[in-house]
Structures are given as structure tokens and as C-alpha cells.
């Protein structure tokens, strides 16, 4: 572990640019290299399964977790955020399976409840200043422990994708079709909700909870327009997430702006580029029967 850390700092520190001389920038760059593939892998599925609002709700739910952690006087309130996000993920999946209300209404209620609870608890405990830090994120908060945790989550996510990617994507296309192929739909959906909760909570302290969902969704949404099959889709998403992450980190250094916001700005630019160059739309005319051979 120590050796790896020395190696990374030595490698990046040898680069001739100003940013490379700062320890926190070297850590942040490593964070980008870990978070980008993780978020691309999860984000492509979030977009495909139409869970964009779900993951956004999880991001905002972190606020209540933070509030609880502060009130409970935890040394690391982040752990309360993690547990809260996982509980909310399970609850939302459960309610959605049972409720006849529209999914977005149910999610809206969860989001409102979590944000309200979080603001109340933080204000009562006189810690409103923490609010801003978590809203916009702080790249200085990246630690070796945090990176090790992120690396573990990335490895777990890749392992899970290896085994259950097909099953998960199939449930998004048609749950009954997935079921007829032996997929245990409820388990796969619940497992994925938990993975989203963990991944999002890992990265919130750096990107900020206001924009965490944008970093999750934008590269995937842009990749969706550029790719034509599943393989290209994931490759483009990883590429765009890396490009936004590196571009955002470095420009935030020179522009003296919050890193999370700058990364998301880059991701938005890539999205706009994809939209303009590949305007494949839902209203695109279908190929007619007449063209069949």
C-alpha cells in the first residue's frame, strides 16, 4: 500500500506541470481514474434502466445521513451517510415494487423527506457550515483511505458486472422476459440499488451532492448518442467520464473553481457535442416494412 502510494506520487510528481507538485492534486487524479470507470459502468445502467431520478434521490438522501451522523456525534459522519443511503435505496426499491403510485412521485417524496430532515438536523446542531461543503464537494477531502475504499468498490462493481450485467440489462428491457430466462428480478434490482447507493456516497464528499448525479449520468447519456451497441456504449462512457474528470480537475486548478462543478461542466460540454454531432432522436423515422428483404 505504502509502496503504491510512493510510486504514484513519484510518477505524477515527476510531471513538469504546476499542478503535479501538489499532493492533493495527485490524489485527486487517482480518484478520477478510479471513479470514472466505476461511474461509467453504473451510469450506463442507470440511464438504460431509467433510474436517473432514483440515483439523484440517493445523492440528496445523503444530506439526511450527514445530519444524523452529526447529531449522533460520529467522528466520521460519512458512515451515517453510507448507511442511510443504503437504507433509503432498499426502502425505495421496496415501495416501488408495492406501490401503484407513479415512480417519480414516490422518489420525490423520499428526496423531499431526506433533504428536509438533513437541513433540520444540521441547523439544530449548529453545523450549517458543513452543509455547503457537502453540497459542492471538496477535493481536499480526498484521503488515502478514501481512495482505497473507492478501489475496493470499483473491484466489487466489476466483479458484480461480470456475473450480473446481462441479467440487470435484461430486467430493464422486460422483467418478464428476464424472469423467463431465470433471472431473479427482485434480487438483481435490489442489489443494483445498493451498489448505486455505495458508489454515489463514496464520491459525494469530493464532487458534492448537488452535482454527483450529473457526473454519474452525463457521460453515459452522451455515450448513448455516440455508440451503436452495448460494447461501444460502455467504452464511450468510460472515455468521456475520464475526459471530464481529468479535464475538470486540471482546469479547476488553473481557474481556481470547485472541482466537482468544473468536472460536470466538462461533462455537459461533451454531452452537447454528442448531441450536436449525433442527433439521433426518439422521433427518428422507423425503417418501414417495405425495405425488408
Amino acid at each position, binding site marked *: 500500500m505504502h509502496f503504491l502510494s510512493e510510486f504514484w506520487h513519484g510518477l505524477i510528481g515527476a510531471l513538469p506541470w504546476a499542478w503535479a507538485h501538489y499532493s492533493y492534486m495527485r490524489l485527486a487524479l487517482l480518484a478520477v481514474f478510479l471513479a470514472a470507470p466505476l461511474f461509467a459502468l453504473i451510469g450506463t445502467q442507470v440511464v438504460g434502466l431509467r433510474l436517473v431520478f432514483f440515483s439523484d434521490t440517493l445523492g440528496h438522501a445523503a444530506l439526511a445521513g450527514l445530519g444524523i451522523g452529526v447529531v449522533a456525534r460520529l467522528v466520521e459522519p460519512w458512515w451515517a451517510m453510507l448507511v442511510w443511503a443504503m437504507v433509503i435505496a432498499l426502502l425505495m426499491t421496496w415501495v416501488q415494487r408495492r406501490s401503484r403510485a407513479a415512480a417519480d412521485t414516490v422518489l420525490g417524496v423520499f428526496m423531499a423527506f431526506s433533504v428536509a430532515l438533513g437541513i433540520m438536523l444540521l441547523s439544530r446542531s449548529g453545523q450549517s457550515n458543513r452543509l455547503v461543503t457537502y453540497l459542492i464537494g471538496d477535493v481536499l477531502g480526498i484521503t488515502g483511505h478514501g481512495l482505497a475504499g473507492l478501489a475496493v468498490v470499483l473491484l466489487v462493481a466489476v466483479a458484480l458486472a461480470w456475473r450480473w450485467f446481462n441479467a440487470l440489462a435484461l430486467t430493464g428491457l422486460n422483467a418478464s*422476459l428476464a424472469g423467463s430466462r431465470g433471472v431473479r428480478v427482485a434480487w438483481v434490482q435490489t442489489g443494483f440499488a445498493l451498489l448505486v447507493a455505495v458508489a454515489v456516497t463514496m464520491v459525494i464528499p469530493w464532487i458534492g451532492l448537488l452535482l454527483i448525479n450529473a457526473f454519474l449520468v452525463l457521460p453515459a447519456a452522451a455515450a448513448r448518442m455516440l455508440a451503436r451497441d452495448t460494447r461501444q456504449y460502455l467504452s464511450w462512457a468510460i472515455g468521456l467520464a475520464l475526459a471530464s474528470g481529468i479535464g475538470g480537475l486540471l482546469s479547476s486548478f488553473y481557474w481556481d473553481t470547485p472541482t466537482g462543478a468544473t468536472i460536470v461542466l466538462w461533462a455537459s460540454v461533451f454531452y452537447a457535442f454528442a448531441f450536436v454531432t449525433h442527433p439521433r432522436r426518439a422521433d427518428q423515422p422507423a425503417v418501414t416494412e417495405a425495405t425488408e428483404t
Partner: protein
Amino acid sequence: MSNSRNTTSAVELPHAPCGACLTHVRNLGVRLGGQTVLEDLNFDLRCGEITALVGPNGAGKTTLLRALLGEVPFSGNCHFYGGPGHPARRLVIGYVPQRLGFDRAAPLTVADLFALTSGRQPAFLGLTNAVRVAAGVSLAEVDAAHLLNRRLGDLSGGELQRVLLALSLSPSPDLLLLDEPQQGLDAAGLVRFYELVARLRGRFDMAVVLVSHDLAAVTRIADRVFFLDRRLLAAGPPAEVLKKIGAS
């Protein structure tokens, strides 16, 4: 695709129906949310036969399919008995859904669909040779081999229906369930689709259940018609069932 060497052994070639395989349903009932959706259903489904499942909206047609798929809990029995020469095993069900949840812009090809359903490796790594060959064989059965590398969003309603049908043929099913296949098809397309189903019935060792709310359209190809409205109100050859429904 020319890379078919050494992989043909993975392809299951269809064989004609033996007429002896039987899906045996007795006293099947479904209650959902405190309401009886289906009750007291007794019927057999034989390989080589097309059974049309008709009835008004809300009659429980889709629920019956979901019960057969094991998606909703039911009371009663559903057993599969293979004919002579069939090893004892679980019933293999092919299912053709009404629709897929994808938008027209989705980066998803027909090949991806086969990778998702039958591939052991995750679809983002692409298609293995074995799956590619098997997909080609299944697609050829429905005259759609040329669609393998097309994007789903670029397919017509008829092409997508045929691709979904091909998907349900691998692995070779004992029971093929088609849920309202007329979605997205015009009248001529529907006739062609039904002709295709009728042709496959003679090639694959399977029973076919076709859900429809359009009685006239299915009677042409169905061997038997089940008229369902919570209970099985009429069952038999199309002409007989039509007469019975007309009388009541």
C-alpha cells in the same frame, strides 16, 4: 458471419413435435391484492398445437402467462410431462413479450439482445462465437438472419417481433408464450407473423400459446381456442368456441 468453425456443436437444431409432450394444468387459480383474477383453470397444452388465448380486457390473459412463467404465485398444479425419449427436466418456456423497454436511440443491437439472453460473458465484451452462430440459426428460422447487426431502434415493428420470436427459440422451448404479438404490426404484417408461427410449430417440438384480444385474427392459425374471463368459459376448436360465444 464466416467464423462458424468448431462452434456448430453448440447449436441446437430443431426437431419436429412428437405430439406427446404435455403441459398439464389443474385447478389453477391466482389471487392478486385480495381479488380473484383467475380460478379453477383446467387444461392441457400439447406440443405441436397452437392454442389461442382470447378474452376481454382484464380477463386475466396476461396474468395466466405470468403464472405459467412463475412470476405470480398461483394455487393448483402445473406439470410438464415430456414425451418418450425426453429426459426428465424442468419445463423450458420461451416468452415473446408485448414490448421491450428501450428508446429508439438506445445503443442496443440484435446481437446484443442475444448476448444478454444467452451469453455467459457480459454483453459489453461482445458476442462469443458460439452465441453468434446460435443467434444466426435462430434468426434464420424467422427469416431475419440479415438483422443480426442492426440496432433495435432501426427495426420496423414486424422485424422486432420476428427478432423477439427468434430470441425465444433458443434454447429450444417446450412451451412458447406469445403475449399480444399484434402490437406494432399492421394487418398484413400480423398475417405474415402468424404464418411464421404456424410454420415454426411444425418444426419445433413445442406447444404454442398465443394471447390476443382479436378473436377473428387468431382463429385462422389456432388449433384450439381458450375463451377466458377469470374462468375458462369455452375451450375447443375455433369454430366450436366461436359458436359457443356467439350463442351466449
